[in-house]
Structures are given as C-alpha cells and as structure tokens.
C-alpha cells in the first residue's frame, strides 16, 4: 500500500458518494423534526458535491486518485478511480442535480414529497457511484440503485401513463440487469476477478473470441439503460410521463451514465478494436430514428424524449470513432446535451403547468405570457441544434471534424446522414419556437411568468450554455485529458495496479 501519491491534499472522492447516501438515509429522521427543510437538503448536498468535485478537478488532471475502500489493495478491494472522466462527470451530475433541486423547490408540490427527495438524492448518488467505481460488480450495484429509483420516479405522478411506462421500463430494465449480471458471471468465470483494471490486464492475454460473449451480454444489458437503438422502446414513455424535473435528470444524466458505462466497458475493459464500425452504424441509426420520431410528435415532452435518443446516437457515433479527437467531441456533446436538455425540460415543465397541456399547439403565445421561460426554451433548442454561439455548436463541430479526419468514403456518407439528422432536429425545434413566439392566441391571457426559484436554475443553465459556447476552452482542456484517460488502457491499469 503505497500512500505517497495517492493523495495530494484534496478531499477524499468517496465523500461524493457517501455524503449524499448518508443524507438520504437521514432524510426520514429529519422529516420527523421538520417537513419544511426536507426540500432544501438536496440543494445543500449537491452544492457540497459540486464544491468537492471542483476542488478535486485540478488534482486529478495531474494524476488520477485511487480510493481503496476498506484498506486493502486492488484487486482485493473495491476501488474508486477518480480520474478526469469520473470527476468531470461527478461535477456535471452535481451541477445538474443542484440546479434541478432548486427548480424542484417550487415545482413539486403534491404527492409523497419526502419520498421524492430521497429517491432524487439516491438517483444522482448512484449515477456518481457508476462514474467513479473501478469494480464491475460495484458498477452493477450502483446501476441497480439508479434504475430502481428511476422506475419509481417515473411512476411518481401516479397517473395511468406514469404507472404503465414505469412497468414497461421496469421489466425491460430488470431483464437488462440480469443480462449484465450473466456477463459479469462469465467474466468472473473466465478471468477470476472483478476489478476493472485487473480484468483489462487479463483480457489482452486471451483471444477476443471468448471475451466477445460476455461483452455482448454486458453491452446489451447496459444498452437498455443507455437507450441504444433496438433497446430503447421504454424511453419516450418513461421520460414523457415523469415529472419534468425528473425528466431533466433522466434525459440529462441517467442515459448518459448508461452510455458512459458502455463506453468504459468497451474501451477500458475490452479495448474496443474490431467492432467499432458496428457501433458507428448503430449510433447513426439511433440518431436518425430518434430525430425522425421526434419530428412526428405532437406532445412536447415526447418530442424532447425522442430528441434525447437522437443525441445519444450522436454521442455513440463520436465515441465509436475512437480517436482522441472524436472522444473529446463525444464527451463535449454529453455536457452539451445535459445542459441543453436539462434547460429544455425545465422550461417545458413550467410552460406545461401554465398551459395545462403537453400538446405543442397549446404553447401558442407563450412568448408573450412567459417571456423568460420561452427565452430559456429557445436557447436550449438552439443549443441542441448546434447554432453558434451556444455550447451545441463547438461540440457538434468537433464531432463532425473528427469524423472528417477519418478520410473514408463511408464516413463522408455518415456525416451526410448526421447533418440530415441535424436538419430534422432543427426543423422540429424551430416549429416549436415558431409556435411559442409567432402564433397568436385566440384570447389574450395575462403575463404569468414561472416563479423565481424556477427561473434561477434556468438562468444558470443558460449562462453555462452561452459561456462555454463562446469560450469552449473553459472545458476542452479537461475534456482532452478525460478522452486520453478513456482511450489509454495501459495507463488506467497502471494507475490502479502498481
């Protein structure tokens, strides 16, 4: 156990997982004292997490931090690997969690609120656990927490659509996690370890044929949560019938964490080499299907949900190219999607509350009734489509440029298809924006803006979107080292097992 170099004075990354978990357990007790302060606890917890993650960020850029739980050395313990990727995602999760928690202060008014806050805390804690852990079975456990709290939050409203989509999501998700567990069992049988770095070290030495089957099981299992094309039929229902604050987290965080797990397993565990063209095609297919379905929707939340499928496709495409440039683009697009989709769902949430319907046509005149919320929606939409000066522009640009750098005919065709997808995306977002601003309402209604506590997180999202959009260098440095962490297996193995 060599202590030197493990810590350079920062806080312990395990706090990112343990502190929210502790507060989640304590919430019912706090509820006995006062019901009113319950909803402020997620805000406080994620503020703490954000501060810890931001303090760790400069440290891990120099050297990844290895956290050995229980005081044993890997592979005999569960370890967390707080590298650039893990801490970057933790910071993103904490940021989105914080902003959505502020929004929730006023948005969630009915139902078993105490349970909502516990589940919300645990959902994001589990997401943080997934991105930090360095143990494949621990990843499975955190994934289960993430899934189970998502099932429940989807059913939170308790209407028919919510329960139905929750049941659908639960059955598909449970089959997915069983497949993941079979994959883990096969890997353990083949290599006798569960530590990801140890597994990665041994998988090089065995021909890829025997590693392929466990990989297929694991990717299929995780693909359900990551909403990769043939496995995503649960997503539009689940994301559209959850409360809007939950949809923002499910779209912005949950599926991206699923995709992170897929990518981590492909790159670090199996050293993705020969299957990558398959994933490139799958990505483009997911993108096109998502965007085309989004185009044909009349329900705003379903439209946003399908648009998430499209974005996931784009991110998968970027990762599957597997050059340093493209992976940077994929990570950038993940940040851009979290911020953009979070903003869109939050804005749409209050527009739906005010208009009383999820139909796009009922959003007429929202530009006059709720100008600030409408502005937020517009910025989110423009950013997702990829217009400058918002964050979506540099991220999409990076992906396209990295695909062009491949210099193969097939990639040129695929880029054409992706641009087609972007055009479709632009078409349906502009249609909504046009309805919001330019269609006259029949009867004039008074201006009725969303409450301040809901506007503040939207503003912060907007500031982040514009700031990174204008000055992408804010994040590209971190993204570059994160991309190299994902691609460099040898370094990952060396940082865990000395």
């Amino acid at each position, binding site marked *: 156990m060599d202590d030197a170099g493990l810590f350079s004075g920062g806080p312990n990354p395990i706090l990112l997982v343990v502190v929210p978990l502790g507060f989640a357990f304590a919430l019912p007790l706090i509820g006995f004292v006062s019901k009113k302060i319950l909803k402020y606890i997620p805000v406080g917890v994620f503020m703490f997490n954000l501060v810890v993650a931001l303090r760790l960020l400069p440290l891990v850029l120099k050297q990844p931090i290895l956290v050995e739980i229980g005081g044993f050395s890997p592979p005999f313990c569960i370890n967390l690997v707080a590298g650039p990727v893990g801490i970057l995602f933790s910071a993103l999760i904490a940021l989105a969690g914080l902003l959505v928690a502020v929004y929730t202060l006023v948005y969630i008014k009915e139902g078993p609120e105490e349970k909502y806050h516990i589940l919300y805390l645990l959902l994001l804690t589990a997401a943080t656990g997934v991105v930090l852990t360095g143990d494949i*079975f621990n990843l499975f*456990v955190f994934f*289960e927490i993430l899934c*189970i709290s998502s*099932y*429940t939050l989807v*059913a939170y409203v*308790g209407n*028919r*659509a919510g*329960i*139905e989509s*929750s*049941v*659908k999501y*639960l*059955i598909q998700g*449970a*089959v997915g*996690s*069983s497949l993941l*567990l*079979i994959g*883990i*069992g096969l890997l*353990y*049988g083949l290599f006798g370890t*569960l530590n990801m770095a140890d597994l990665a070290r041994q998988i090089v030495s065995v021909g890829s044929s025997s590693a392929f089957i466990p990989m297929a099981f694991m990717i299929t299992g995780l693909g359900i949560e990551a909403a990769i094309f043939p496995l995503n*039929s649960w997503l*539009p*229902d689940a994301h559209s019938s959850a409360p809007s604050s939950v949809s923002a987290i499910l779209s912005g965080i949950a599926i991206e964490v699923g995709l992170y797990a897929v990518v981590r397993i492909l790159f670090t565990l199996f050293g993705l080499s020969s299957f990558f063209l398959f994933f490139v095609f799958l990505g483009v297919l997911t993108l096109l299907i998502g965007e085309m*379905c989004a185009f044909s929707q009349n329900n705003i939340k379903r439209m946003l949900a399908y648009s998430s499928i499209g974005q996931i496709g784009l991110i998968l495409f970027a990762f599957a190219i597997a050059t340093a440039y493209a992976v940077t683009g994929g990570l950038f697009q993940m940040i851009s999607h979290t911020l953009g989709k979070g903003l869109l769902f939050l804005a749409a949430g209050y527009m739906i509350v005010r208009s009383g319907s999820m139909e796009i046509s009922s959003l007429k005149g929202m530009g006059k009734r709720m100008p600030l919320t409408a502005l937020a929606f517009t910025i989110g939409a423009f950013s997702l489509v990829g217009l400058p000066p918002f964050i979506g522009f540099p991220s999409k640009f990076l992906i396209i440029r990295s695909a062009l750098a491949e210099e193969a005919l097939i990639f040129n065709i695929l880029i054409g298809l992706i641009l087609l997808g972007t055009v479709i995306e632009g078409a349906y977002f502009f249609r909504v924006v046009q309805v919001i601003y330019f269609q006259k309402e029949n009867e004039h209604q008074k201006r009725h803006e969303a409450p301040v506590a809901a506007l503040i997180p939207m503003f912060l999202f907007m500031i982040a979107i514009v700031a990174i959009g204008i000055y992408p260098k804010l994040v590209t440095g971190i993204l570059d080292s994160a991309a190299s962490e994902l691609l460099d297996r040898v370094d990952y193995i060396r940082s865990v097992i000395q």
Partner: protein
Amino acid sequence: MVFSQVIHFLQNHIYYIGAFGLIFIGLLIILVKHNLIKVIIGLSILETGVNLFLIAVGYISNGTAPIFSNPSVETQRMVDPVPQALVLTAIVIGVAVLALALSLAIRLYQHYGILDLRQIREQKW
C-alpha cells in the same frame, strides 16, 4: 461405458444445465406471456437461474464451505467465497425489484383494471 460417460458429462455440466435452463425458461416467460404477474414470475425464475450460475462458477470440486467453524481443521480446499457474496447481493436486489414490480402491478390493476401487457398502450413511433 456409455453410462459412465453420461455420469461424467452430468458431473461437469448438470449445474450449468440447470442454471441456463432456468434462465431460458425465465426469458421465455417474459418474452411470450402477456399477464403482468406471470411476467414477474418469469423475472424471479430468471434471477434464480443467474444466481445458480454464479454459484456454480465459484464451486471447486471437493471443496468445503468457506467457513472456519472448527479452528483445528486446516488446509482443506474451500470454494470461492466471492460468487457467494455476489449472489447474496443479487438475491436482495432481486427481491427489491420483484416487490416494486408487484406493487406497480397492484396499483395498475386497482386503479385501471389492467393486468395485461397488451393493454398497455403500444409504442407510438
């Protein structure tokens, strides 16, 4: 001769056959049946199968259970404790998922009278 071959085959594969048999029957129930409770029964069988598979992976021939209840007995081979720990976790996770699924099924039936997955609105693409 044939008999001993069969015995040999069974010795090496019977647990795997049982585990994957359960996994397949479970998956088949989930894929083919429409009744929600039946599908959840399928999930439970699937989970049992996965657990059996994990334990079978950790077995070592003629090993003993990994418990030192008698300190004087030493140097006997013990079966791998890791899959057992994993399966303990998996069983608890399984019961959590099953209970949640059944509560949703009860809610769905009592409020909307649905127990058939075909009645759950088909996916609108």
